């Protein structure tokens, strides 16, 4: 097909031909085209079906406000639904498909909805799908879901990547039309750091769509010359294809830069889009204005378009929408469309001007006091019906109709802080109100200054105000000469003739009738109107429709438009792909990984890893002959208890605490006492929250008089540090205490089992016999002939055990040394699963027990809370409610029949008791298979558990559907007297 509607002129490169397809059909266009302009050039007006009634639709606009021409762009994994054809840049090989139609765009089965429109009016869903309730999930929702939405998703992983970034500037200028360019020139020449962002792929804004001269040259040339100057200024950053999507607090703005959307696919390594966070001191909103239509019967046919857009297609893209063009306007600006098209040789069949009287355009059939009251043409406009000033009607053949109901300033960003727009009667539109984002001023059409001269003038004055606030003194310069036509408008919101549907919100299919129905049913407040009719709730946020809807409601209620109110806009200004918000944080790159010092060694051994927060820890280390994880874990447990096992415990938080008041400080943050701890010793510490609940636990060693090293659980390393800083700075601001994390500085391994000392003694340079290095000893040592190291004789497993730490760079070497030296003892390396078995067998609490609900008393550690000193949480741990003698106590659990499995999360029930909440005795917190005991064992919180040792109960789990008879035992399954660890 040839480009039958391509006319002369335009900012396109006719020397290059681009091929593209729409619904499988091939077309051609040129660089500079959008998908919409290229399709229109090819005579294609029908581009989509409407949301609810499946009405045939073509583009209403030539910009990002587009409600109708939504297509599926690209194919395969890159297919993107609901893309506005009016802003999609044409590239060679582009493939697009229409959406929301079946089987084809021209013949759509669902257009049946259009015939049923009487039943599908506003509130239809609320009224219809009410009852019976049982129908909702199985019948109504699936039907609605199938019918809802426009485009479809590929359901494939997005192959593109998205960057994020941060920019800083003195002044952010949103929009690069005459106002934005003038503001940028003024601020840029004065040396300020300027960011000029425009959503379009060409700077100039409306200048590219008009035939106005600026400064004695065509407006497009002036824009290009200005951009050329700005690009030489190192303090000015020009950002094309960049939409400011939201204003946030204190000068922070979000922007989406479409880096690669104009290409078939991003270049290797390049992102598709970049989400920028812009820190600005001042902002000038120069986002221009959006035209609004006039509602009349059947005003949604392909070929009926906003007047300024139809003009833009002619001037910027060299395209006429039809061969016979009519214009319907309530203001002077709409008349420009007729003049520009006529000048380009297009047949302008009539100008229907709703205003009475006044001068007539020369050489054009200019009908004053007339209105368009209906249109014809199933898949595209064929004719319009006009009611003339004398009351007679006339049918005029036309394939395109340009409609102008006036222009709405693009104040969206200015209202992102809930600033209510205010009504400006002179232009019959809302302008930015008070109380918007701080340090934001609007310039040009965005603030209601509609002429080119007014745009240049307010652009300059806004920039001068900003410069003044920044302390830069610059004088105004002479403005380039430009048109300064007044806004001559007599509002007409909707045509009162005819009984059919007149569309207001094209994307959500809201008509004048729907507004009337909302009024009839008393949904007259703006917020109710919006939700009842869905006016403005589509992805275009009602850019073209909202004000008309308000005006109709104002008319019905007899109030003025400002009295009726307005809704504010929300970010994002235009729809944003989810991938853009995710950035690089997806899949395996969702968050960083932390590797332990033994990671490389463990990889070589074929270890199975588990994510613990961001850490990757060894979960278990299977041997070649092991096919089930339990085989590996049972072996690791038994080998440790029999001889010796090694485990990487680097992930535990380590905090270096120094200062002359370090002991006093620890007495504040721990429930038990540390100031009395001897140098060279360590102690288990219990940290409470101020409400008396256990916060964290770990061992803390005293390495010198004023130097301690605290360990935290892996999970709480960050929050404990934060808490310590709070206590240090906010509660006891003059204690002499200094903190720093050393978690990463030391590679730390636990060596546990009867042969632990023998193994370590092979590597440690000093004597570590029990006499020299007793249980709970701690200190600096050296290993392997002089390497600085730390040794702590602590045990989480109940065995004779040590933790040995070396500078992290030697962590890999040390695990290899330990494994080698351990060969004679059949030493094994174990992971987190075995760690869990060992600690549960010993009855030590961990994350499942430190659940943010449990006290020291619950854990059987009540005596650790010293009442002789004021520590965090001590006071409130004494509350009556937390000291119920029949409250939860940590117990051990064994199945009566040792072949039966237990499951964590099961609830304790008395034998014979009904499984109801009132009989709930508590729950099993942690469960493992204990090869030592020869059955499953568990820890749990049981009401009055300490009084129930030896009793039989049941462990009931509704999720697993298990009900197991159990015996309540001491949580210390192994060596309750602690003889092993002191050995």
């Amino acid at each position: 097909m040839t480009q039958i509607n391509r006319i002369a002129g335009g900012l396109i490169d006719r020397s290059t031909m681009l091929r593209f397809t729409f619904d499988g059909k091939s077309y051609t266009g040129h660089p500079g085209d959008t998908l919409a302009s290229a399709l229109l050039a090819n005579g294609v007006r029908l581009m989509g079906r409407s949301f609810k009634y499946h009405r045939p639709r073509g583009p209403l606009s030539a910009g990002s406000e587009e409600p109708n021409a939504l297509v599926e762009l690209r194919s395969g994994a890159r297919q993107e639904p609901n893309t506005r054809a009016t802003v999609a840049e044409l590239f060679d090989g582009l493939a697009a498909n229409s959406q929301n139609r079946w089987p084809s765009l021209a013949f759509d089965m669902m257009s049946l909805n259009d015939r049923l429109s009487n039943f599908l009016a506003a509130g239809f869903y609320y009224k219809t799908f009410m009852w019976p309730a049982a129908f909702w999930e199985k019948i109504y929702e699936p039907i609605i879901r199938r019918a809802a939405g426009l485009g479809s998703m590929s359901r494939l992983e997005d192959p593109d990547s998205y960057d994020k970034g941060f920019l800083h500037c003195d002044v952010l200028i949103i929009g690069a039309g005459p106002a934005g360019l003038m503001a940028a020139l003024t601020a840029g020449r004065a040396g300020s750091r300027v960011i000029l962002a425009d959503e379009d792929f060409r700077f100039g804004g409306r200048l590219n769509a008009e035939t106005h001269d600026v400064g004695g040259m065509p407006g497009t040339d002036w824009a290009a010359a200005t951009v050329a100057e700005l690009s030489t200024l190192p303090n000015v950053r020009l950002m094309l294809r960049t939409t400011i999507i939201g204003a946030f607090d204190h000068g922070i703005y979000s922007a989406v830069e479409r880096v690669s959307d104009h290409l078939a696919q991003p270049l290797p390594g390049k992102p598709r889009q970049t989400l920028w966070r812009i820190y600005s001191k001042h902002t000038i909103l120069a986002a221009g204005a959006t035209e609004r239509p006039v509602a009349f019967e059947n005003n949604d046919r392909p070929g009926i378009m906003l007047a300024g857009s139809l003009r833009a297609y002619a001037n910027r893209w060299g395209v006429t929408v039809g061969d016979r063009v009519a214009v319907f306007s309530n203001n002077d600006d709409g008349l420009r469309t007729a003049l520009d098209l006529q000048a380009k040789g297009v047949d302008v069949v009539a100008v229907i001007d709703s205003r009475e009287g006044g001068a007539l355009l020369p050489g054009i059939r200019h009908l004053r006091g007339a209105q368009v009251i209906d249109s014809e043409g199933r898949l595209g406009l064929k004719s319009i019906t006009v009611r003339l000033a004398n009351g007679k009607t006339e049918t005029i053949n036309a394939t395109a109709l340009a409609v102008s109901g006036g222009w709405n300033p693009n104040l969206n960003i200015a209202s992102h802080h809930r600033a209510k727009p205010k009504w400006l009667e002179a232009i019959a539109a809302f302008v930015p109100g008070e109380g918007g984002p701080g340090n934001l001023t609007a310039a040009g059409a965005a603030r209601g200054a509609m002429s080119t001269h007014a745009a240049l003038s307010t652009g300059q004055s806004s920039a001068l105000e900003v410069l003044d606030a920044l302390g830069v003194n610059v004088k105004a310069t002479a403005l380039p000469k430009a048109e300064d036509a007044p806004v001559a408008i007599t509002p007409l919101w909707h045509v009162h003739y005819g009984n059919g549907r007149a569309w207001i919100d094209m994307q959500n299919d809201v008509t004048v009738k729907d507004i009337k129905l909302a009024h009839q049913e008393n949904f007259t407040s703006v917020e109710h109107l919006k939700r009842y009719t869905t006016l403005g709730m589509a992805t275009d946020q009602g850019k073209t429709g909202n004000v008309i809807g308000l005006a109709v409601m104002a008319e019905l209620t007899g109030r003025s438009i400002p009295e009726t109110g307005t809704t504010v806009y929300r970010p994002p200004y235009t729809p944003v792909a989810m991938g853009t918000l995710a950035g690089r944080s997806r899949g395996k790159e969702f968050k960083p990984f932390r590797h332990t010092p033994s990671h490389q060694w463990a990889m070589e051994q074929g270890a199975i890893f588990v994510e613990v927060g961001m850490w990757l820890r060894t979960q278990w280390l299977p041997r070649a002959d092991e096919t089930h994880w339990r085989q590996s874990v049972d072996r690791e447990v038994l080998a440790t208890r029999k001889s010796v096992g090694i485990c990487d415990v680097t992930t535990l938080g380590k905090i270096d605490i120094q200062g002359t008041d370090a002991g006093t400080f620890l007495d504040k943050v721990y429930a038990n006492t540390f100031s009395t701890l001897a140098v060279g010793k360590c102690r288990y510490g219990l940290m409470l929250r101020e409400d008396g609940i256990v916060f964290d636990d770990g061992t803390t060693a005293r390495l010198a008089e004023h130097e301690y090293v605290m360990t935290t659980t892996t999970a709480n390393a960050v929050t404990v540090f934060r808490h310590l800083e709070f206590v240090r700075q906010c509660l006891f601001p003059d204690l002499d205490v200094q903190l720093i994390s050393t978690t990463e500085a030391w590679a730390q391994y636990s060596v546990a089992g009867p042969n632990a000392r023998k193994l370590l003694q092979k590597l440690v340079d000093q004597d570590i016999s029990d006499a020299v290095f007793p249980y709970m000893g701690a200190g600096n040592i050296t290993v392997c002939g002089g390497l600085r190291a730390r040794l702590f004789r602590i045990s989480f497993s109940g065995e004779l055990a040590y933790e040995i730490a070396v500078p992290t760079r030697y962590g890999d070497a040390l695990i290899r040394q330990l494994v080698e030296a351990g060969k004679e003892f059949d030493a094994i390396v174990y992971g987190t699963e075995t760690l869990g078995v060992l600690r549960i067998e010993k009855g030590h609490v961990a994350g499942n027990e430190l659940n943010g609900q449990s006290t020291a008393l619950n854990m059987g550690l009540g005596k650790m809370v010293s009442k002789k000193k004021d520590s965090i949480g001590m006071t409130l741990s004494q509350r009556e409610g937390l000291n119920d003698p029949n409250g939860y106590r940590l117990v051990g659990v064994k199945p009566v029949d040792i072949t039966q499995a237990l499951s964590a999360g099961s609830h304790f029930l008395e034998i014979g008791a009904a499984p109801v909440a009132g009989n709930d005795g508590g729950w099993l917190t942690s469960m493992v298979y204990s090869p030592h005991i020869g059955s499953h064992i568990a820890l749990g919180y049981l009401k009055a558990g300490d009084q129930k040792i030896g009793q039989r109960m049941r462990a009931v789990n509704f999720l697993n559907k298990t009900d197991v008879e159990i015996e309540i035992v001491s949580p210390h399954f192994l060596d309750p007297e602690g003889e092993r660890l002191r050995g």
Partner: protein
Amino acid sequence: MIINHPILGPRDAQEFVYLGDESLMARPDGMAPDAIALFHDYLYLRDNPAGEHRELWYHEQGDRSWLVVTRNTVTHEISKVELARDVARSMGRST
């Protein structure tokens, strides 16, 4: 939001962790005879103003200082930022 750190200057609020009301610094003496009642009020009775609020923020991705930020909870306007340690001292918490 931007928090104008008293030492570091303007920093993005994303770098901070929020805790709550400044009154959390007014921790009672745990050895006082009526300590339980005092701690109950300290921990659980809090104003929730629509308007100016003095609140604690921690500069976790910065210098690890705790700050008292005077912020209007309706407009997000921040009128004052102080080092919590200085505020604690002025509250008489030095001993």
